[in-house]
């Protein structure tokens, strides 16, 4: 690790000021991603601004929305009664990630901004356009089992590894941001960029812009929702493919509304807008789910080691929605 200074901020304003004072400052949440990357010298901040002292409040409002402070720990969010009751897919997504210990450390803000686990991003002897723009990408022809099938570019196929974000994408979460230029709100699904030819620029955040909170708008039918994660061992592994879904089926068996997002398949939490649009008004049948899955994955491109994810994603989507519809896959 390169040397750095450390300061702890109790509020957003202080945090932004502290960060603004150092050219390569980073906010520090639980450190479970940043400290690891600093040890690998992939991240070399000159200053750490500890933001775990910011709001750890979870505010369940009467209108059914929930406001979550950025410093809320992953465990606390997953265990919160209102989340479990109204947004079970979010609890389940968080609990499917990492380990009990890491979830106790990890913050909501840090989870959203964790970086990819692409093997070539992690190895400074490899070529990686994300680490060194223009260097090339060794993952394309290398071990890319974990890499993206949707939204990738020739320059980069790294995935965003978060489970939590998949649920947040499905829930249409809004991020509260604060920076030197004031505060703003954006949709979580707009936060992460697709790589195109600039995979080093991962989000639309401005320099030292801080996530202060995440807001979940009310979504009554999310009470019937789930998260399904497929991985290489039974626990404590990143997703190969995951799906967060909520389903609202009318009495006549047609789909009133649906939310669907995918993890492990794209450089960002992948909201399946196409599939959702096809399904609204369609019958809640396995066949309809499969057709929508086919459409969502129509543009998927497999690499040498991850083509299996295309079929896997279709199956996971179909099975997850079928289960929510009350049937057996």
């Amino acid at each position: 690790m390169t040397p750095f200074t450390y300061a702890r901020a109790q509020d957003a304003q202080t945090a932004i000021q502290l960060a603004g004072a150092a050219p390569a400052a980073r906010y520090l949440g639980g450190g479970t991603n940043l400290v690891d990357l600093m040890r690998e010298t992939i991240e070399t901040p000159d200053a750490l601004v500890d933001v775990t002292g910011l709001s750890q409040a979870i505010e369940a409002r009467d209108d059914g929305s929930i406001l979550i402070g950025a410093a809320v720990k992953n465990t606390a969010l997953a265990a919160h009664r209102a989340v479990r009751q109204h947004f079970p897919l979010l609890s389940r997504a968080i609990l499917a990630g990492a380990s009990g210990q890491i979830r106790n450390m990890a913050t909501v803000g840090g989870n959203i901004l964790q970086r990819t686990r692409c093997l070539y991003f992690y190895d400074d002897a490899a070529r990686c356009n994300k680490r060194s723009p223009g260097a090339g990408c060794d993952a394309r022809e290398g071990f890319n089992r974990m890499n993206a099938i949707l939204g990738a570019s020739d320059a980069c196929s790294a995935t965003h590894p978060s489970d939590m974000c998949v649920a947040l994408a499905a829930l249409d979460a809004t991020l509260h941001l604060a920076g030197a230029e004031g505060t703003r709100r954006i949709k979580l699904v707009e936060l992460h960029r697709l790589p195109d030819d600039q995979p080093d620029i991962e989000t639309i955040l401005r320099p030292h812009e801080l996530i202060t909170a995440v807001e979940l708008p009310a979504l009554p039918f999310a009470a019937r929702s789930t998260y399904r994660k497929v991985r290489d061992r039974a626990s404590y592994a990143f997703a190969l493919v995951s799906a967060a879904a909520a389903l609202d089926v009318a009495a006549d068996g047609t789909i009133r509304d649906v939310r669907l997002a995918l993890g492990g398949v794209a450089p960002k939490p992948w909201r399946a807008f196409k599939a959702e649009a096809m399904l609204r008004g369609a019958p809640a049948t396995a066949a309809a789910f499969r057709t929508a899955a086919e459409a969502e994955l129509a543009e998927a491109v497999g690499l040498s080691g991850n083509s299996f994810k295309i079929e896997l994603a279709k199956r996971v989507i179909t099975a997850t929605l079928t289960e929510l519809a009350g049937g057996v896959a």
Partner: protein
Amino acid sequence: MSGQMEARQSAMLASMSDVPERWLTTSARDKHGTLGAPVTRMDGALKVGGRARFAAEVPLDGLTYAAVAFSTIAKGRIAALDTTAAESAPGVVLVMDYRNAPRLKLPPVMFSAPKAGAQSSLPVMQDEQIHWNGQPVAVVLAETQEQADHAVSLLRISYEAAPAVISFGAAQQNARTPEKILREPTSVAIGDAEAALAGAAFKIDLNYRTPRHNHNAIELHAATAVWQGDRLTLHDASQMVNMTSWTIAEMFGLKEAQVHVHSPYVGGGFGGKCLWTHQILTAAAARLAGRPVRLTLSREGVFRAVGGRTTTEQRVALGAKADGTLAALIHTGVAAMTTHNNCPEQFTFPARHLYAADTIKVTQQVADMNMIANTFMRGPGESVGTFALECALDELAEALQLDPIELRRRLEPEKDPTSGKAFSARHLVEAYQRGAARFGWEKRSAKPGARREGEWLLGMGVATATYPYYRQPGGAARIRLTADGRAFVQMASHEMGMGTATVQAQHAAARLGLPLDHVVFEYGDTDLPPGTLAGGSSQTASISVAIIAATQALTEELLRLAGNESPLAGLSADEVETSDGGLRAIAEPDRFESYASILGRAKRDDISAMAEAPPPSEVQTYSMHSYGVQFCEVKVNEVTGEVRVSRFLGSFDCGRILNAKTATSQFKGGIIMGLGLALMEDALFDERSGRIMNPSLAEYHVPVHMDVPEIEVMWTGIPDPKAPLGAHGIGEIGITGVGAAVANAVYNATGRRIRELPITLDKLL
């Protein structure tokens, strides 16, 4: 089996055998003392209390911390190595590279001399040549670990790359046939197996592939080195303290006695905690700095600088007659290796000893690559060899429409099929029968895909487990008896979690006729009488024989000391036995004197005797192996291809079990590592760079709690009359056969044959 029955049986067996009777009995009265009982680990309280100090935890004044830079090319030379920035970083004591490292002789590679322990014969930081991607190229010493780690990142190193052999496929073009596979012939041919195969009524001819594995003991490799003049003390995590001491002494031009290796606790070994470059570099850096040095490899460092199990491609061809007996058995293949090590991965060994066949052909090759020297890892050879052989047998059983267990029963040989030697003990068929009954094998449907629970398809599979009995030559034990009736049994052997220290204390207590809490087994230190390496499941036999010899020597010493006033006066060592804390005349049980009384009369505080173990002649005469059967039930998700092991039973035949508790753990531990081998483990070697790309416990998957069901183990417990204590080492056998049992169960669940490990879900979609 009851203790009494067992005792009677072993006495009977011993009387028929040509090994010393005392190998099978211990003390006369208390036939086996606590041997066999589920005695709790003696080092347990220290370990659960966090008070056992491992190699990286020895407190020392003036300690410096090391960090290592690893090469990023597979072959070539260091073109430039700029240490300026690193040297001027805060806290840095020095930077060591090939230009200033102490001059060292070439490492004596394992098998090149009896005590040679180096895993590679390459020079250690002596020149600018690079031989593998990940080779240590510089060591930074600093006052703190943080400073050393940072300074390494400031080294500026450039390379001139040379063409490297880093594709297994390309390397196979130049595959060679080694002279020997360990100490065995490389090839065995009985009859014309290819012709017999061609003419067989039923035949299968299949290829299997297994990937690279890493031991990944949870304790990171670490060494702490302190020089006092020309004497080196090395605190190591080691499964071969004497070989490490001898080898380092050779390299530094010292006498073996000048290199003191201390390794009381080892946080898992599995073959990985032998002598690699990091211990040598620690000693060299400490010498250069004139200060103690601690070097802990990072987890990435473990993948770069410590070899693992190599990759193999194997062919198994079986030709059968209508009754299932084999007309031809062929097992051949190739493993990746290097020109600078000696570990051909003996995957053809099981096929040499398991099944009767009219004709047999086994032979294996190695393909040299530019990579870190591969090495022995739990069940080397047998773990991946049984995957191929036992999967093929399952396929043959199906072709013959025979139950796989019935097929194996029909293939049971009367004597060793290739050496022709008599088996010292073999109760494999019994292990099959007992295991099958316990597991409920009869519920298996021969037709794949017949059982289902929701999305999950269920299947059962079975495979034979086998591992040779080895006893290492050399080694000696000393027993010191004190006037208060306590024994200190000493041998520089190793406890890495196998239970060795506990089992040998049980053994010594039984042998000396002392209560268990009066016996301490001391190990893990080269100041003790020399031990043998903890490898090849050989320690139990190697230590036991040395203790038996030392007890004999001690008895003679005691009788001499007892003199004419003793009730034992005039008796020879062969006429007495140990019993109840003393010696007793065998023919006249009333003639007895306690150790305390003998020592007291002679006014001695203690008495000690040391003896060397006799050479392992038993393996010359007999075919000696452990056996087992792995029963597995899996669930395979039809939607996602995920495989979950829902039930597992290991039924073993490994001679007498010496401690039911630690043995159970050894078997289960092997099985669990086998589940990793079957389902997830793969050290990803990028054939463009020769670099392992997942040097991390997050990306190299080993089984977690959730992957592991409640495993059952059982054993025949029938003593091997040709082995000391009637027992075999059991560290490795647990992993053998597991890959095949899982693969066969996956087939039974899904109808899909997976012939390449690991069985990841994409292969089942």
